């Protein structure tokens, strides 16, 4: 197992380096002089060359990249042009909200998705099964902002059960549940039916296996056969899928946070783009990409833990 963990971690390093190279060049590819964007058009040539020297922009590009990577590893991602605060501080402030939203969403999607998937498999071709298939199809075609706006219109504006947006300051309180419900449901909207479909198809494969017939022949209760014997083995691909979904949710959070004024990183990115705050855009994209790479690594490790065959491949 240790060998497997080490191999997976080593394989992640080139991906992280590649991601940092892309993000580093991203800002350099923006037309125009980045210094002018940083200091404004009024700066004199003398000031510009001084700042260029200070920031090391007069050095060869590979030297610049290494110094950028070294600083990024230490969490130094430069300062926001807009607020003049370190980008890392902005990220630290905003990421908990995004983490809260994405984690709640994936948990909602996993919990209901797995339950619906199991029922669909056990009651194959029933009305419930057909309905879950139709909703899966609808969910992949549904623009996330439409789902968010529909939920907001019905639950916040029409029924007035939930607030239309914002996030209370408390760490964990009932008030937060009210604020979190609609954004989390919106974000889980696409993942939930897909998890349900995946659970259904893997369950259908598993419940036809011989050991399930044996379990039934032993006279075990149906609930025990389904949940203890079948589901455990059917869940391995579902766990992997959830990991991949987490990365997608991080992207989807950009839109959801915008709809519900949820003050997370997605909103920070959009605000930064609107104010052309390049260090913040660069920092956020790098951070979220690294989080998604690490999530994939964690999933691979869990996968190895759940399925011993993977470890020895």
């Amino acid at each position: 197992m240790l060998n497997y963990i080490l191999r997976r971690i080593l394989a992640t390093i080139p991906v992280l380096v590649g991601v940092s190279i892309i993000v580093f060049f991203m800002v350099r590819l923006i037309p125009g002089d980045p210094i002018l964007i940083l200091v404004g058009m009024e700066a004199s040539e003398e000031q510009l060359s001084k700042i260029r020297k200070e920031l090391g922009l007069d050095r060869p590009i590979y030297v610049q990249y290494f110094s950028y990577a070294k600083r990024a590893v230490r969490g130094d991602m430069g300062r926001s042009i807009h607020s003049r605060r370190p980008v890392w501080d902005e990220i630290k402030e905003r990421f908990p909200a995004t983490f809260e939203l994405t984690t709640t969403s994936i948990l909602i999607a996993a919990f209901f998705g797995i339950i619906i998937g199991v029922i669909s498999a056990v009651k194959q071709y029933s009305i419930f099964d057909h309905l879950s298939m139709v909703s899966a199809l609808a969910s992949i075609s549904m623009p996330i902002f439409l789902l968010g706006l529909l939920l907001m219109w019905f639950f916040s504006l029409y029924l007035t059960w939930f607030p239309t947006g914002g996030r209370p300051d408390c760490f964990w309180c009932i008030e937060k549940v009210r604020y979190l419900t609609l954004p989390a449901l919106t974000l889980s909207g696409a993942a939930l039916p897909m998890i349900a479909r995946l659970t259904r198809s893997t369950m259908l494969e598993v419940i036809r296996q011989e050991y399930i017939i044996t379990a039934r022949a032993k006279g075990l209760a149906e609930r025990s056969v389904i949940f203890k014997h079948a589901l455990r083995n059917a869940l391995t691909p579902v766990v992997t899928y959830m990991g991949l979904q987490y990365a997608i949710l991080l992207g989807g959070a950009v839109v959801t946070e915008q709809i519900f004024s949820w003050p997370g990183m997605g909103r920070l990115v959009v605000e930064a783009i609107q104010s052309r705050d390049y260090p913040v855009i660069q920092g956020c994209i790098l951070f979220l990409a690294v989080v998604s790479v690490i999530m994939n690594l964690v999933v691979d490790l869990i996968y190895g833990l759940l399925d011993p065959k993977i470890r020895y491949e």
Partner: protein
Amino acid sequence: MSIRRFRRHRLAMAGVVILFTFMLASIFAPYLAPYDPLKQMVKERLQGASFTYWLGTDQFGRDILSRILYGGRLSMVVGFISVALGLMVGGLFGLIAGYFRKLDNLIMRLMDILLSFPSILLAIGVMTILGPGLFNVMIAVGIRSIPSYARMVRSTVLVIKAMPYTEASVALGAPSWRIMLSTILPNSFPPILVYSTLEIANAILLGAILSYLGLGVQPPTPEWGIMVSEGRGWLRDAPHISIFPGLAIFLVSMAFNLVGDGLRDSLDVRLKETKG
């Protein structure tokens, strides 16, 4: 045989009907649209659906039906062109990686790096570099699909390369480029067609998201994502401003998904990656 199977696929046929309706409506928008999509009729603002304005008017008094008809053109163009772009670049990478195994590792690791960015973020990053605009949306959406095409084409190439007819071409001394173009490429067509149909649905959604976030096509252009975004502030009093264009995105995207699923079933394609 495949065509007959496709025609018997009811859901896929429903998708074809929806798509044709939207495509024809977009192409003939200048003849079908009852009003000028940009014309502001201030006295008629925030009207609900009626015989005069079938889908109502927005906060500037513009006819929503006319704007949806014209907006369809942009969404379809974004869907088709960005997928074509992703297919050309990604397909070429996949073809090279699958055929010349020495380059395989390098190309596929590069693709892994691109895949590690959540697709919306990658598109946002590209839009930051390129700036807003229709053509830039197509590039940003297209770049996102490059790694998935590369992976898919590569895995198909690996399967086809091992087929006796490809080996026969090699044995006959055909040059690599000819084998790639005349043997491998035509045989990769079914999975590419299926995947592209499904990918157009995703591209339309992502294009609309970029416009919704204010990064893509800019107002007052009648574009579905912008229309939903502009109606956000009027959700309480006039939800139709956002909901109708949102439904248009949903229907077109679902139609592409239905057709893609139908093609997959009738062409018997499994979009599964082969390890190699």
